[in-house]
């Protein structure tokens, strides 16, 4: 097939993490890579996604994505004419469930566990706190990888406001639990003695938030501290996993301004952190032939001289032309010709802008692959395989 695309990357890694800003087709790309890897490379491949389209779940023959890993039915591959060498599995990240599991694993005793799980602040954090998604995604990835159940895990990252948060999540989680500031914050509630240094803080905080609320916060941290060792150790291990040579990042972007800016920023961040940037996937790229100079001249001529061209066609087409019901009205033919020319000019403007962006982006990674602007959203396995082949 090739070897110049993502095939080699997927064959030599155990974890491939797709990143990029929202709306660039990250999830679909991750699923397409997974499908190709299962079909071509064999072994067990897991696509771990965060926020899939319902149609994507359907595309993979799944009722819905769940926190449990589910195999994509092999018959589904057969139905699109692919005989997979391996197995494709899929799972979705359920943030709350994963946090609960983590607490169960690390809580020192049943009492603490139940107190944490029942704490309103804990529920708030796991359900709403944005960065908790980042951490838990990494954590779950680490857990699955360590289990050794899969030859390749393709991870679709959570929609991060700032992609860097994702990379730093494990480290930040470790910092968070080992922070002196945190200890300082909860000390008065342990000792029931507010020392001179922190007194102004509590005076102000009490006035703003009310002391009951502060006490709730402190209780939560005190409880969470009991899991300190487990957490820090775990966060370190997660950090090591993503920095490992067996892990590679694939940055996905369209060629619009904002995604391009984020992709550039993110690729630089990977380089700075010495993480492996495996490939850049440019998605929804307009065809190259919009750059054709001769075609641009043709389009211009159609816009400027549509009636003349229509007349010329009627003349050279002879009887067959004039006999055709659809082509009989030269004014209508001219309108269509002008419309075609105008549309080409319009898209050419966008294609030119895209090419310039692609050149800028291509400076970073060793491998750049482009996926075409498919005229339908990918909604079935056939679509995933088509997309996969384009980047494979």
């Amino acid at each position, binding site marked *: 097939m090739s070897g110049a695309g993502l095939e080699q990357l997927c064959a030599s890694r155990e974890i491939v993490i797709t990143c990029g800003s929202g709306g660039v087709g990250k999830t679909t790309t991750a699923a397409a890579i997974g499908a190709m890897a299962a079909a071509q490379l064999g072994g067990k491949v897991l696509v771990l996604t965060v926020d899939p*389209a319902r149609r994507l779940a359907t595309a993979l023959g799944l009722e819905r994505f769940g926190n449990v890993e589910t195999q994509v039915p092999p018959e589904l591959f057969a139905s699109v004419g692919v005989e997979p060498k391996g197995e494709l599995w899929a799972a979705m990240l359920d943030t709350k469930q994963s946090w609960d599991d983590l607490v169960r694993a690390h809580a020192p005793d049943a009492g603490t566990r139940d107190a944490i799980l029942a704490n*309103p602040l804990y529920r708030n954090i796991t359900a709403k*706190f944005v960065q908790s998604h980042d951490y838990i995604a990494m954590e779950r990835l680490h857990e699955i990888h360590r289990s050794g159940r899969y030859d390749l895990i393709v991870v679709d990252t959570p929609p991060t406001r700032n992609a860097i948060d994702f990379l730093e999540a494990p480290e930040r989680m470790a910092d968070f639990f080992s922070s002196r500031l945190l200890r300082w914050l909860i000390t008065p509630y342990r000792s029931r003695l507010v020392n001179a240094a922190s007194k102004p803080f509590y005076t*102000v905080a009490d006035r703003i938030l*009310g002391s009951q609320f502060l006490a709730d916060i402190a209780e939560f941290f005190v409880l969470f501290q009991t899991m300190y060792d487990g957490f820090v150790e775990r966060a370190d291990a997660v950090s090591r996993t993503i920095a490992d040579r067996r892990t590679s990042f694939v940055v996905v972007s369209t060629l619009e301004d904002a995604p391009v800016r984020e992709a550039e920023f993110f690729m630089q961040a990977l380089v700075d952190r010495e993480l492996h940037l495996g490939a850049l996937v440019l998605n929804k790229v307009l065809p190259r032939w919009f750059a054709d100079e001769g075609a641009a001249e*043709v389009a211009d001529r159609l816009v400027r001289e549509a009636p003349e061209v229509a007349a010329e066609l009627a003349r050279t087409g002879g009887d067959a032309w004039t006999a055709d019901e659809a082509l009989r009205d030269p004014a209508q033919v001219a309108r269509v010709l002008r419309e075609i020319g105008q549309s*080409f000019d319009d898209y050419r403007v966008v294609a030119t802008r895209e090419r310039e962006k692609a050149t800028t982006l291509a400076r970073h990674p060793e491998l750049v692959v482009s996926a075409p602007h498919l005229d339908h959203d990918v909604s079935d396995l056939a679509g995933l395989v088509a997309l996969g082949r384009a980047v494979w």
Partner: protein
Amino acid sequence: MPRDLELLERRLLFVTGKGGVGKTSIAAALGLLAAGRGQRTLLVEIDAKGSLADVLETGPTRFEPREVAPGLFAMSMDTEESLREYLKLQLRVPLLARIGPLAKSLDFVATAAPGVKEILTVGKIAWEVRERHYDLVVVDASATGHVVGQLAAPEAINELVHVGRVREQTRWMLDLLSDPVVTGTVVVATPEEMPVTETLELVDRLEIETRVPLAAVMVNKVLPELFGRGEQEVFDRLCEPETRALLTSAVGGPVDPVLDGADLAVRLRRSRAEHITRLRTELPGDLPLFYVPYLFTRAHGLRTTRTLADTIGAELGY
């Protein structure tokens, strides 16, 4: 009903949508449009990514609002600054001694109690509206995933915090945010599967989980209809091999890319039309739906944003 209210007659608009749909451009365009109509307008960027500065071609925006076009002011949200301002205005806390540790701890407190950062964000915005510093405040809000949490923050805080100054504060915020004559959410979508799905989900969640009224849905990047009645048939004929040959000799150049380009345009338009239909049929019937055409422009920047503002103005009937 307030939904008949013209969009820009409100005093606070939250513009949200899935990432990549162009909500920053739409927010900036709404700002330009309102300012152009003589409304003193404040644009607020929530996620300080600098996109607002890009679409307005202005220097970096800061917490302190700055006039970026006649009558149009822009600022970026900064929760720490917001806290400072709040303390200064509301509590008259002597600054130097107390704020240092408080600001440093903010991250931790905010981590423990999500809603603290959100309340500082929403609170600052609501305060600007209440004090009537501007005729209209347009917020380039967070993307679909986070905006509900942000807009629901005053209520969430109300539930968590039982006494204290904050509780008093959330009451007037809720009054202001839930008044459909004052506040509205504009959800931006593009005619693609995920953005439409997320828009439908967001509309539901906003109605269930927040008290902030919906003002409109804007479908951005709508591709033009290439052919009118009967013209598609003409085009299909032109694509047949014999006619292609005739056309090639008539224009004396390569016609394949031009015809294929038009074909691609037709197919893209068609697949997107399905998503527009789904959006239209599944949204509440009384929720205004506006269409904003795809702009085939050389680059993005102030000029494009102005064009966008004019286009939206025409769509809104101005």
